[in-house]
């Protein structure tokens, strides 16, 4: 699981990331998760949301991705509210959540094909290569229900290799990955940041090796 097939990075993406949260506050069930949070995600940033269980990491991530509108404050993509330029924004960021959106009866290849159907420029070859890189070569035609938890996660992560978006938003992507998988993903994140991409991530895992790393600590649980 090494980066055997580097993508042509000059063409990888044309826009850069410029996402900003302005005074974002959120509460759930009487409890304030975070208040007046402001930060920006720019070209080359790797931002890790940290905090104990129930701190609101997932919640913050989802609202940054535009999936949750139940909060106060504003999230902007190039100075425009993400909801008003959602189509645009959606094409520039990749969101991978807790749930992997893998259909169990379909093969990894078919699943991947669905994922990239909004990017017609992605070739069939690229899909095969991506599956090979996540060490699923030979499993392309096996229904996903016969794969283990970690293998299924790899199918979902293979999207990182094929969709040309500058911003990645990832919720606990290391879940269920083994050591080799973790190392591979860390390397991939470093590469993405180096080539000018941006990453917003939650993980209980320490991402120490990547120099660009910035942490945002969310409130302590009570």
């Amino acid at each position, binding site marked *: 699981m090494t980066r055997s097939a580097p993508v042509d990075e000059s063409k990888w993406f044309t826009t850069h990331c410029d996402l900003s949260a302005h005074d974002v506050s959120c509460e759930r069930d009487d409890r304030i998760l975070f208040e007046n949070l402001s930060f920006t995600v720019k070209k080359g940033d790797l931002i890790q949301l940290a905090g104990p269980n129930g701190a609101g990491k997932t919640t913050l991530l989802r609202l940054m991705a535009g999936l949750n509108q139940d909060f106060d404050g504003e999230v902007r993509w190039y100075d425009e509210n993400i909801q008003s330029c959602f189509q*645009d*924004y959606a094409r520039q960021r990749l*969101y991978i959540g807790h749930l992997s959106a*893998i259909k*169990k*009866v379909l093969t990894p290849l078919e699943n991947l094909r*669905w994922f990239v*159907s909004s990017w*017609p420029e992605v070739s069939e070859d690229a899909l095969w290569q991506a599956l090979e890189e996540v060490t699923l070569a030979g499993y392309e035609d096996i229904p996903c229900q016969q794969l283990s938890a970690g293998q299924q996660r790899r199918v979902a992560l293979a999207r990182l290799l094929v969709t040309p978006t500058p911003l990645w938003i990832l919720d606990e992507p290391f879940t269920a990955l083994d050591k080799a998988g973790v190392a591979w993903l860390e390397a991939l994140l470093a590469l993405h940041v180096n080539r000018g991409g941006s990453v917003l991530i939650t993980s209980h895992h320490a991402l120490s090796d990547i120099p660009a790393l910035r942490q945002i600590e969310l409130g302590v649980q009570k």
Partner: protein
Amino acid sequence: MSLVTATIKRDLIIAARNPGEWLNPLMFFLMVLALFPLAVDPDPKFLSKIAAGVVWVAALLATLLSLDALFKADVEDGTLEQWLASGESLYAMALGKVFVHWCISGLPLTLVAPLLALMMNLPDDAYAALFFSLLLGTPILSLLGAVGAALTAGVRSGGLLLSLVILPLYIPILIFGASAVYHAGIGMEYAGQLGFLASFLCISMTLTPFAVAGALKLNLSR
């Protein structure tokens, strides 16, 4: 290929791999039809009188039961989240899902209903009416049902709840569908009922996708 067509294609592949998805409604339809002669009265004359109504009730119940799974799987495995994240139109998605649902439930049901109506001793004149009333009526059942399915997709024991939500809305279709068949059976005109079904189909085809899209968003904004 856009995400909508990719999803339609994918759902059809899934249905093809799980023949249960379209066979089960058919078998349920058959069984409900079989219950009546057993529970009430197997006399052919009597059956011929109730055939129109019972076939329609059975078709309605079969559709109802198949609706439960319409969005549930997509919500649970994160497909819907990905759809929403993609920024593509939920309206189109709703129509696409309903189309697939109709292809694997309403359409086969319409095709076999005339055969099964033989068992209920349906009058000879009524077969055409049965076929056309189902052809126009079952898409409405799918469309209205999709609203209920979207509303209850996140709920645990959704099956029963879905029935409660949807059954009252199904009544007009049942009335007009069954009466078209009944009137055809006694040699009367039934174009009026079909006309009603056709216009109701047009209305619901334009309006329900909005409700479905709104309801689907609910399941995500958590």
